[in-house]
């Protein structure tokens, strides 16, 4: 924006509805991208807490060897549910649906997404999918026990409610596709005048790349799931080896989506990291174009590495080394990002506020996760640690330590903008520290146990693992305690926190030029963009705290 004046007091989107209704209907029937973002936040946060609680129970079962609080079948159900809820209901939609919806239009200077009604529809499709997951738990047959990967042939043979649970995943995928279509069209069609491609904030680039993966990859899991359902219901021969099917083909088709899906999870998080690092370093990003392009490169190369989940499945040796090579290539664009972030901080005037601390947390945890991924990407070491706790530790460091951490980082960064209130910064700082301690206590021992041979998905273990399992379980108490503590002080701040100004952090992207919380139409006048996205010379003309 050419000048940084904050608009005179205008009514926020909480006070002005986009439809003729008031009260709850003004929310349920809204087409405002900000209200839809908030509705996603409430729903997704709920499922995150459910998933975390399930995880807590799983760890409790593993506190002592043998049966502690549940039997094997219950444990099978719980790890499946933990996976399905965390992946399909929390981490895939999490950042794009909440923060992408809320901030993508604002950051490109638009009043809404390209298809606002479609946006509301994808929210309801998400809710339907979530309800189907819950219903599948309680109808006769019992909750699904296949693990979140639904591998053939067990998923066609088991009597549990596989069909309904995976149909829920199909529905959730549909919601994800519609969100992706919406975001790609929005970025192409609704950028404000002067907002050229290389003036877009990096969160927009990351969300744009994510949206493409959502469009191109999700349909493949859609058809795979439909095939499993058709096979279960009608007995049509597609994957079942007894009828001549090929279970490895199922694994290919499953991972053709589910590997790119991990980039759906991590790319928006990387976008948020770029935003937070620049804001708190008061310095333009180092290597804007490489970071933007590396998002697209990750989206693309990330599409070519799916079969590294299948090195021991019995696929051909030619395929294993090709996929191993491609897997190492995908580390390059991720490395480009990390180096550019660090270079941005160099000689910046760093202001270590809470969101910045979350990013530090992210860089540490994600680096461990990423580097342990190289162990799994090399063929020889992978054979040793496949299906052990090592894998579990790896993807929790990447997914939870990466995306999960940034979910909290983004929450703390944008909370004052979304709700117009500030949280208790002392509590928030303590939470970052206890999160870090709890996280590493919970997951780091799993690297060691995995290396020693502890297999994943078992409710029992050999006595030699007992000390490490105990540390891990105690870590889960600290971690889940921290999560509930964060939820508590954020909820408290909603009503009782001090009022936040339009720009509490001194950010310069467009969302910091408008009041907190934003007015319904976002901008009084669509801005004309003249500055680079992270040009902090604008701060001189803007009002901001300190």
């Amino acid at each position, binding site marked *: 924006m050419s000048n940084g004046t904050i608009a005179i007091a205008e*009514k926020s989107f909480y006070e*002005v509805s*986009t*439809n003729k209704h008031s009260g709850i209907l003004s929310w349920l029937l809204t*087409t405002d991208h900000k209200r839809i973002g908030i509705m996603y936040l409430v729903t997704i946060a709920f499922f995150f807490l459910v998933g975390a609680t399930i995880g807590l129970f799983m760890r409790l079962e593993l506190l002592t060897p043998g049966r502690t609080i549940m039997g094997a079948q219950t444990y099978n159900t719980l790890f499946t549910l933990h996976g399905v809820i965390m992946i399909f209901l929390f981490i895939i939609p999490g950042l794009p649906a909440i923060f992408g919806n809320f901030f993508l239009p604002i950051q490109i200077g638009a*009043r809404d997404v*390209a*298809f*606002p009604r*479609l946006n509301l529809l994808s929210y309801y499709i998400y809710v339907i999918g979530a309800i189907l997951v819950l219903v599948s738990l309680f109808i006769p047959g019992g909750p699904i026990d296949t693990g979140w990967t639904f591998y053939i042939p067990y998923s066609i043979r088991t009597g549990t409610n596989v069909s309904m649970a995976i149909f829920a995943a199909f529905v959730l995928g549909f919601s994800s*596709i519609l969100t*992706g*279509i*919406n975001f*790609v*069209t929005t970025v*192409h*069609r*609704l950028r404000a005048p002067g907002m050229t491609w290389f003036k877009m904030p990096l969160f927009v680039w990351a969300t744009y790349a994510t949206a493409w993966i959502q*469009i*191109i*990859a*999700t*349909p*493949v899991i*859609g*058809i*795979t799931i*439909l*095939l499993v359902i*058709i096979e279960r219901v*009608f*007995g*049509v*021969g*597609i994957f079942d080896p007894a*009828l*001549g*099917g*090929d279970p490895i*083909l199922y694994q*290919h*088709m499953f991972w*053709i989506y589910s590997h790119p899906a991990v980039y759906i999870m991590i790319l928006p998080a990387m976008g948020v990291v770029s935003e937070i690092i620049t804001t708190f370093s008061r310095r333009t990003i180092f290597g804007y174009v490489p970071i933007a392009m590396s998002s697209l490169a990750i989206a693309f190369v990330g599409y070519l590495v799916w079969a590294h989940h299948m090195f021991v499945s019995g696929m051909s040796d030619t395929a294993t080394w090709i996929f191993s090579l491609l897997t190492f290539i995908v580390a390059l664009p991720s490395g480009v990002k990390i180096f550019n972030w660090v270079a941005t901080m160099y000689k910046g005037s760093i202001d270590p506020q809470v969101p910045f601390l979350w990013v530090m947390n992210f860089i540490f945890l994600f680096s461990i996760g990423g580097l342990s991924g190289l162990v799994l990407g090399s063929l020889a070491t992978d054979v040793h640690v496949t299906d052990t706790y090592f894998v579990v530790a790896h993807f929790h460091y990447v997914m939870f330590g990466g995306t999960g951490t940034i979910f909290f980082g983004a929450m703390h960064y944008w909370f004052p903008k979304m709700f117009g209130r500030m949280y208790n910064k002392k509590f928030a700082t303590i939470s970052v520290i206890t999160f870090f301690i709890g996280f590493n206590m919970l997951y780091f021992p799993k690297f060691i146990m995995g290396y020693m041979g502890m297999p994943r998905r078992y409710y029992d273990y050999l006595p030699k693992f007992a000390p490490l399992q105990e540390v891990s379980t105690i870590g889960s108490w600290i971690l889940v305690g921290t999560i509930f503590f964060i939820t508590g002080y954020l909820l408290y701040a909603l009503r009782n926190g001090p009022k936040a100004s339009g720009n509490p952090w001194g950010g310069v992207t467009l969302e910091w030029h408008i009041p907190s919380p934003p*007015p*319904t*139409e976002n901008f*009084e*006048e*669509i801005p004309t963009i003249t500055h680079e996205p992270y040009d902090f010379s604008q701060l001189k003309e803007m009002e901001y705290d300190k």
Partner: protein
Amino acid sequence: MTNSHQAAAAIPHVHRDDVGARMGMWLFLFTEVLLFGGLFLAYSVYRYDYHEQFRLAAMDLDTGIGTLNTLILLTSSLTVALSIAAIQKKNKFLAMAMISFTLLLALFFMINKYFEWSGHIAEGLYPKSPELLNMKNGEIIFYGLYYVMTGLHGLHVLVGMAVLSFMLVFIAKDKITFDNYVKLENAGLYWHLVDLIWIFLFPLFYLIH
């Protein structure tokens, strides 16, 4: 927008972007292409594995019905394209006639499909049938893919018919006019996609010899 923001705050601003609407539709079509792409991938892997058995199993399919349905769908694609050309030339009657004709052709396609499927079922070739389970693995898979792929395609034909019926109503009520016809264009795009998929299904199932 300078003075209108108070008004705009209460009423959602009307914003029309035909290119954006078509872009959204194309992106949706890509998801359809990849959805069927997964099926084509399964088909190609199994055809590679069971080359000879696929050839044997395909002998039972009637090339005549397949060809007839191809001609029907190609013609229906033409009529949809013509209806868009007609609405651009402000010829409302021709546009409606062409859409109605498309619906008729789609109905023929489905009737053919119905007789074709009931023929197979009468022969005892349906999932889990004793007849089919006695056959070789490759033939079971062939019929599995045949039912799923043509079935899913048929489902798309039905959805396309529903969409085109709405378009017919919209044209009749002048909601689609010569200067605002992006809905019809998008419906047409969807219909052409249904045709495109059949263009590939046809040689893969009916022309193996």
